[in-house]
């Protein structure tokens, strides 16, 4: 199978799993618990599954190592997003918090790579 089809498969599986976790999040209350599912590892499960099917499990450890850095950045992003969303609204607040994710993820990547 060509490289393009693997990328397409990764996208479809990622989108599908994100939707599955979103559906679970829609069905549970309170809102704060539903938020747990907004940070579910849907993209990671999809990406790692396709990686294993395509290249075997050798790149999996590297991928997971990078994800540790990305996840630490995601915690920082969420922590900063709470006051920013309250002050600026969801769109502007979550967009502004991306700066924090980029900075922490970059530093983490430099550390693990």
């Amino acid at each position, binding site marked *: 199978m060509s490289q393009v089809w*693997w*990328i397409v498969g*990764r*996208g479809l599986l*990622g*989108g599908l*799993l*994100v*939707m599955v976790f*979103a*559906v679970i999040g*829609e*069905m*549970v*209350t*309170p809102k*704060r*618990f539903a*938020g*747990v599912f*907004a*940070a579910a*590892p*849907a*993209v*990671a*499960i*999809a*990406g*790692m599954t396709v*990686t*294993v099917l395509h290249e075997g*499990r050798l790149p999996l*450890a*590297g*991928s*997971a*190592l*990078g*994800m*540790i*850095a*990305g*996840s630490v950045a*995601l*915690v920082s992003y*969420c922590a900063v*997003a*709470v006051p920013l969303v309250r002050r600026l*609204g*969801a*769109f502007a*607040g*979550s*967009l502004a918090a*991306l700066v924090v*994710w980029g900075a922490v*993820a970059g530093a983490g*990547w430099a550390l693990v*790579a």
Partner: protein
Amino acid sequence: MSAGGGIRFQPAKLRETPLRGLVVRFAFGAFVSVVAGVVGELWGPVAGGVFLAFPAILAATLTLLEEEEHRRDPAVQDARGAVLGATGMIAFAVCAWALALRLPAPLGLGLATVAWAAIAGGLYQAFGTR
């Protein structure tokens, strides 16, 4: 149906969910997955792995939530819950890294997902209701 910490499971709520919201989340999920894949191809699996925790889906969810509810508080509560889910993601990644070469991949990813659920759920029970 309800569990500890005031958690309720209400499948009927799904009927109130706008289809547009699910389609947007699918699109963002697909987009982030493709970006992570392309970054992995260009700069290696470690760089691609960083993007497996890119917060685009969360940003989309918060924006949709504010649009649907016409106020900011539900989005703020959702972001607070996401802190717990994101902490669980660290457990997922550490577990996947530790088990990657020790167990068959489906089992390793399954255990990593269980670790995510246990950490995120445990943190919610401990701090989520305060």
